[in-house]
């Protein structure tokens, strides 16, 4: 009798997992049209952030923490600050040359945002930048 009940329990779990995939597919179908592109946001003057330095900001909304990194005198990158593993706040370690997640020691390549070590498997959300009038501007969020 125990085997019978256990088998029923497992198959019920199997049905639940199938419904999980149904929900995921349905959610993709019902996803609305893409929201309009966010407005450009001035972040910093071109010389405000030193090489190897960072500036924190929020983009595209106030609920989205982000990090601007100056990798070289003429190279800036910006990413969403949420680790793609479990959403911990990442920071830039210039000495290690990596964006680091302190929670589970995930590492990201600062040039591309791609994970290089640890549990994350998806790249950081990249924020597109432009230079205008001597200022670094956030102008959009790159597609995943």
């Amino acid at each position, binding site marked *: 009798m125990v*085997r*019978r009940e*256990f*088998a*029923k329990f*497992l*198959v019920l*779990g*199997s*049905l639940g*997992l*199938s419904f*999980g*995939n*149904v929900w*995921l*597919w349905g*959610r*993709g179908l019902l*996803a609305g049209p893409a929201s309009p592109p966010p407005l450009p946001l001035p972040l910093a003057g071109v010389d405000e952030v030193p090489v190897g330095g960072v500036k924190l900001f929020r983009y595209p909304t106030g609920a989205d923490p982000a990090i601007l990194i100056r990798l070289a005198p003429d190279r800036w990158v910006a990413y969403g600050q949420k680790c*793609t593993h479990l959403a911990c706040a990442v920071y830039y370690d210039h000495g290690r040359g990596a964006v680091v997640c302190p929670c589970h020691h995930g590492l990201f390549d600062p040039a591309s945002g791609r994970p290089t070590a640890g549990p994350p*498997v*998806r790249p950081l959300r990249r924020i597109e930048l432009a230079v205008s009038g001597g200022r670094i501007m956030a102008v959009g969020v790159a*597609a*995943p």
Partner: protein
Amino acid sequence: MKAEPGHRRLLTAIDTALGCILLVVVVQIWLLTASVEAALAGDRAISLPALLASGACFAVNAGLLRFILRLDRLGR
């Protein structure tokens, strides 16, 4: 009292089917995890094939459950 050989074979068959169900459930868990990761990364194309594969897994499990219940009725 020792179980009859026929009864032992029945239990072995049921246990084997149970083991197969468990394996398929593990595969389904992996499938769902991979689908969620892909969806979060913006790849929605994977959701339909994953749904079909998960549905197939459930169909296999349902068939195995039916097999177990039939064996259980035979054994009683």
